[in-house]
């Protein structure tokens, strides 16, 4: 698709915010139904952001930093996340204690999924509808992630009246992109020198694949997000075992704690 030449100059001005009056209105009407011009507008905005980044100036004075720190100290928004390390970097990590690192990874996952969804829709939905839809889905995904992984959020499991909560897990696996999200609850506290391990059981009957070591929190909850997995592995089932903390974790040695029951 190429941009409509009669709008090319106006698009450049529009991206700059320099188009006004009737020309602006005419272009906005055209953009309502022209995917190629909207795409060009996006590219122009991307190019222009680089123009903004070329401004090399002095650093802000120290007083500006102090001013901001005072302002945010006077305006606490939410309690500080419990036990959250300062700034962990992303890894295809399976360590559940990094609650908000997991949140970041999960956010990436959601964004990736939504982008794919958007790409697939590109040729069938009108551009405006597509962008609105993508925006609202992303917003929704962010809210879901924030709620799921907020350490302050209450996690209450409902069971049959009178029965004792049992260890449970839920694995959501997307083979195509090797994305795996696993939530567990009510896991018994770990004995000394033990650790839980998640396993993927391949559909072809091959040996189970290690899908992450984890330790639950004080309430028995744990999350595993995007452990390293082999490409294209179709899963028949998932299970969690209790393993010795030391030694090899490439094949199950310990006892099963929870096992998948299929979809």
């Amino acid at each position: 698709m190429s941009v409509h030449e009669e709008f090319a100059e106006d698009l450049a001005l529009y991206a700059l915010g320099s188009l006004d009056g009737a020309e602006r209105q005419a272009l906005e009407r055209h953009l309502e139904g022209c995917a190629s011009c909207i795409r060009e507008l996006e590219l122009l905005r991307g190019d222009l952001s680089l123009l903004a980044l070329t401004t090399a100036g002095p650093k802000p004075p120290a007083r500006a930093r102090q001013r901001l720190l005072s302002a945010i100290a006077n305006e606490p928004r939410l309690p500080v996340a419990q036990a959250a390390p300062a700034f962990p970097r992303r890894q295809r990590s399976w360590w559940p204690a990094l609650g908000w690192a997991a949140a970041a990874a999960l956010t990436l996952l959601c964004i990736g999924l939504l982008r794919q969804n958007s790409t697939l829709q590109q040729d069938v939905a009108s551009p405006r509808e597509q962008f609105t839809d993508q925006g609202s889905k992303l917003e929704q995904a962010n809210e879901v992630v924030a709620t799921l992984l907020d350490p302050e959020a209450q996690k209450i499991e409902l069971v049959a009246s009178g029965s004792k909560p049992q260890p449970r897990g839920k694995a959501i696996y997307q083979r195509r992109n090797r994305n795996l999200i696993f939530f567990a609850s009510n896991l018994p506290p770990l004995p000394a020198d033990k650790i839980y391990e998640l396993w993927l059981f391949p559909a072809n009957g091959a040996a189970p694949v290690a899908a992450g070591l984890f330790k639950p929190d004080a309430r028995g909850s744990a999350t595993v997000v995007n452990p390293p997995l082999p490409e294209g592995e179709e899963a028949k089932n998932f299970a969690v075992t209790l393993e010795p903390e030391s030694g090899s974790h490439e094949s199950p040695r310990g006892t099963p704690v929870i096992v998948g029951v299929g979809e």
Partner: protein
Amino acid sequence: MPSADTNAMTSDLALVMAIRSGDQGAMTGLYDRYSSIVYSVALRVLQDTGAAEDVLQDIFMQLWRNPGAFDASRGKLAAWLAVIARNRAIDALRRRRPENDIEDAVVPIEHDLASEADRSRTMDRVRGALQAMPAPQRSALEMAYFEGLPHSEIAEKTGEPLGTIKTRIRAGLLSLRKVLAT
């Protein structure tokens, strides 16, 4: 192995997620990482250190109050903040109420900006492209972008026909893209 780009993006996301939890340390980290960009852009537009500091404060306070305004679909954080800084500074320059909410800014960008080294390389190319432009072309582009002037005002200011200004601006942007595509 995740790319440097993925790492930087994640690291930015991790900071924003921590800010969502009210982590003031993460806010400081974000400020230390990007305040220079925001301040430089604001100063370039406003040519006034006090006013640029106000824009800087305003943008980071908005992020503190509403960190959900940034998500990765809006672009890379450095570019997103630079654009917000430019928009806010233009609003301040023209003494108008903020017209661009930070939640509305979407900056799709494909270039390497992950690390300072990546940014520096890309910026060198952009600066090279600007230097290579004919002066009237560069001037028209900069007046539109850094002064926020409508094309009619640029035409008036330079004494050039409206059509010429339009053509110059587009040609400037095209040459910028050409350099970035190589």
